[in-house]
């Protein structure tokens, strides 16, 4: 068993997930079953292989071909208003579970 109940508690903490006891037990079983399958990757020697986090890592923009940017994580001008105006204050708050019309309200942050 790769993943123990203790690991599940630790990872659930990192992920900000409460998880019931039942969910924790099921998670131990499921994560182990999936990770056993992921072990298949260890058959491969990847010591000299470059990682590919993005499609653009492997296929960078061809600088010689102007106006032909294929895969790009191109920068843009840092303009003050960005690419669109910020949402109006009331619109930004309209989906908030709780607000005081100026701020998002949350339960207290510091426990005494």
């Amino acid at each position: 068993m790769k993943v123990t109940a203790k690991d599940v508690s630790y990872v659930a903490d990192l992920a900000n997930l409460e998880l019931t006891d039942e969910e924790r037990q099921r998670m131990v079983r499921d994560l182990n079953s999936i990770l056993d399958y992921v072990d298949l990757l260890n058959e491969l020697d990847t010591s000299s292989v470059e990682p590919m986090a993005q499609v653009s890592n492997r296929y960078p923009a061809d600088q010689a071909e102007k106006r032909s940017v294929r895969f790009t994580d191109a920068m843009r001008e840092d303009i003050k208003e960005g690419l669109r105006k910020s949402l109006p204050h009331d619109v930004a708050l309209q989906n908030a579970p709780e607000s005081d019309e100026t701020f998002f309200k949350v339960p207290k942050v510091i426990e005494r």
Partner: protein
Amino acid sequence: MDLDSLTIDAARSAVQDRKITAKALAEAFYAKIQKDDPQIGAYLILAKDRALEQADRIDQLASQGEKLPPLGGVPIGIKDVLSTRGVRTTAGSKILGNYVPPYDCTAVSRLEAAGAVLLGKTNCDEFAMGSSNENSAWHPVRNPRDVTRVPGGSSGGSAAAVAADMAVAALGSDTGGSIRQPASFCGVVGLMPTYGRVSRYGLIAFASSLDHIGPLTKTVKDAAIVLRTIAGRDPMDSTSADLPVPDYVAKLEKPVDGLKIGVAKEYLGEGLDPEVRNAVEAAIQKLNSLGCKVVEISLPHTKYAIPTYYVVATAEASSNLARFDGVRYGYRARDARTLSEMYRRTRDEGFGAEVKRRIMLGTYALSAGYYDAYYLKAQKVRTLIARDFEEAFSKVDAIVTPTCPTAAFKLGEKAEDPLAMYLADIYTVTADLAGIPGISIPCGQTREKLPIGLQILGRHFDEATILRVAHAYEQSGTSRT
């Protein structure tokens, strides 16, 4: 008006020629949805006000004799992971149950600008995580071809809506097969464009390096029309490609003779249903008889694609879904005493089982001590999978495979076994990992009359070729199911 098999051009022409108003057409679709959708469950939210306002605008143009835009008056469905201004968007999740986006997804605004009428939001697996649509927090979708079976996922509502003639076309999203697999199960066309061909702005992110938006349609030509409309650079998505958008429709009729079609043995091996194999082999024969040259190729790292995908996709998901914390939008757990308790309980009560499983797996794969063993390892194997395709496309113009190893399975059949469910994507995930485009088209049916899908994969930004091959096959008349 007969809504069955109504294509984009037929709908648009009918409105243009005043045979029906856009408003009456939209209302006919709503009547059909009201009658048929209780048995299917394809729609989550109807957007009648917005649809009828748009229909009015189109009717005004038509009555003034103006030429309608390419999708003028055409009723479409939008997968519920795509943001729609003023229309509730839940991503199939309780955590966004009451969320009303303040802006539109670029693909949606481009379709609307081209005259499309947005009927509503289609059901999907929660945050597009699933292969059967059973992970929707609201209700499952049933396959219109056999209501005891799943429509596939995660764009199951979009595929079912098109298959059941409750929309002329629909948008879906594909991260590991979520457009092509449901298209295959429901007997419609599903196109995943090249990564970056269509802006992801306004798509609720699952795995950003793998997410694609694309059409589900009744014909290949309709897929080409929708792609032409939604493709192209968008400054709001820095990964959207700054490349001209070809006229995919005009290129459809170009003959396919002389094209080299690759067939990979890794996609025809163990686990493939014999009926699916027979249908795909017959389709390959057909393409051969249309003048394509069939070439055997090898994609040796195919069997590593599912484990690679489930590390990369869950790692990205664990990061993307961190934003759902009950502060700015969506569901919030009641009566939490502290902020930390509020976060944890909100996420526990708001997310479903599969989403939690993937967040846990992704968080584990990224956590200290495991990053190199899982996340970095998977990124390196992703390179090997991309290299397989580079090698293959140095020899062939397109690759033909089954879309899925089986036809649609029964509801509940795989719901308790996450790994078995993941394997439904075995032939589709490779394209997402490599960033290449793929299309699924119907290629016959099983003895039980379930649709079978043929997948055609192409080079980066070469949607024109796969659409052309798909169109030639479709026109040859053998795809009817």
